């Protein structure tokens, strides 16, 4: 069990921690002689973000679209497949090992294949983001759907519940906390997938921007793109947490 701090400290301490790191970055790094083309200071990054606002915004949208679509497709397909597997042991025994094997292929190795298959548009980035979300959610969702207790199972049998009723009234609510813990992780990995896809074949998006800025030594622009990637992940994460709070209103 984690011990809760008294309430004002819950806000003050994380904020103070972040501010102290930013201050150290702003003043100590130049003092230590790190040149700004390698690590620009926070104020320089902020300057780029205001000055190149339009360019950054233009590249933010494709990445946002790709990550969110990938997130929805990857997790959606994982949930449906988990439901199928839990109801059909034979299918699970036949195909889960195949999926397990596919999951061992590094996403960076798989990305060029997906781009070959889907071309250079948005589709391959969505697919890469979906693939990267898919596996953890599949595994978590299967575990969640199977986490019903023997007594719960017997209760539903005594009530002569159909499979659909057991799924809807028992398995899915039981699986919800498992699902949301993998959705939290997927909120970051979906963005990673989209950015990786843009690295390999795109002239738009934050991933493409990161590559171009790196080759052109535009470190301010590079760091600004990184900040936007992180903001995107945080926004999806916050949405997931808000949904979780709305869906799971009880405490064990």
């Amino acid at each position, binding site marked *: 069990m984690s011990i809760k701090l008294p309430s004002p400290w819950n806000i003050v301490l994380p904020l103070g921690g972040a501010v102290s790191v930013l201050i150290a970055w702003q003043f100590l790094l130049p003092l230590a002689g790190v040149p700004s083309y390698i690590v620009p200071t926070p104020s320089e990054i902020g300057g780029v973000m205001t000055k190149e606002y339009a360019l950054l915004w233009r590249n933010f949208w494709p990445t946002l679209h790709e990550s969110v679509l990938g997130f929805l497709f990857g997790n959606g397909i994982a949930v449906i497949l988990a439901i199928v597997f839990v109801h059909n042991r034979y299918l699970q025994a036949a195909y889960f090992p195949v999926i397990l094997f596919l999951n061992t292929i590094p996403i960076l190795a798989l990305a060029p294949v997906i781009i070959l298959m889907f071309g250079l548009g948005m589709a391959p980035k969505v697919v890469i983001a979906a693939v990267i979300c898919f596996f953890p959610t599949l595994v978590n969702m299967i575990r969640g759907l199977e986490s019903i207790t023997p007594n719960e199972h017997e209760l539903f049998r005594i009530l*002569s519940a159909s499979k659909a009723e057991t799924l809807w009234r028992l398995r899915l*609510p039981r699986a919800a906390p498992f699902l949301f813990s993998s959705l939290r992780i997927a909120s970051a990995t979906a963005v990673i997938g989209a950015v990786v896809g843009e690295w390999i074949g795109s002239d738009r998006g934050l991933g493409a921007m990161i590559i171009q800025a790196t080759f052109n030594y535009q470190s301010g622009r590079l760091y600004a793109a990184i900040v936007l990637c992180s903001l995107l992940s945080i926004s999806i994460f916050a949405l997931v947490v808000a949904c979780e709070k709305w869906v799971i209103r009880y405490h064990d």
Partner: protein
Amino acid sequence: MNAAHADFAIAAKALDVGYQSASGALNIVLQDFNLDVSAGEFLTIIGPSGCGKSTFLRAVADLVQPVKGSLEVFGSKPVDSRLKRDVSFVFQDSTLLPWRTVLENVLLPLQIGKAGTDGSSGDANALLDMLGLSNFKNRYPGQISGGQKQRVAIARALISKPKILLMDEPFGALDEITRDRLNDELLRIWRDTGMTILFVTHSIMEAAYLGERALILSANPGRVRKIVDLRSLKDNGQTLSREDPRLTDAMRDMRNELSHC
């Protein structure tokens, strides 16, 4: 209650019940089990662990299939009474769904299948009222005590108006004061509804205090060792005092019998 002329709620003849173990071997838990339970009877079941107390309840509830012999619930197979919702089960852990409020938990049986359509949220509120839970109906199970959870489990079992209530050590995890209080409430519910109750317990006190008859089982394999008739102590329909010397005598006999199981 005149047992000799009443219809049997449950009739087991030369019944064997067992489970298939992981290695495929059949593990017989109940062997050559004979028992008749009259409609409206309160039967308590007590015995050492492994004697098949719970297994018998599970067979009546159609959760486990007999290997041999016959088991009838109201003259037909257990599956028929399950499909008709004639049987309800109360588990030792309340088995409430944590994502449903107290009221929603009680309503669960009405939301499943066609059998549940007779019954309303009015019935649920009346049951919660009767069990002293009105002020808690919008709480989640995580927010109420163990005794309250078990009351909710009883309300959920009663909502479908069952003819038989199967209770598997329902108060085993509760403190003694709560347990005594729930015992008295259960007796009141039993008298009001005329249900048949099968009540498995580890407590000799509960077995003697609640039951019209107490069934003592021996273990490995589970067999009927003795049926203690307690009706003569309770024939006036009044609740017996827990200190009644006749009850104490009956408990002494039961303890003696159990020590030889």
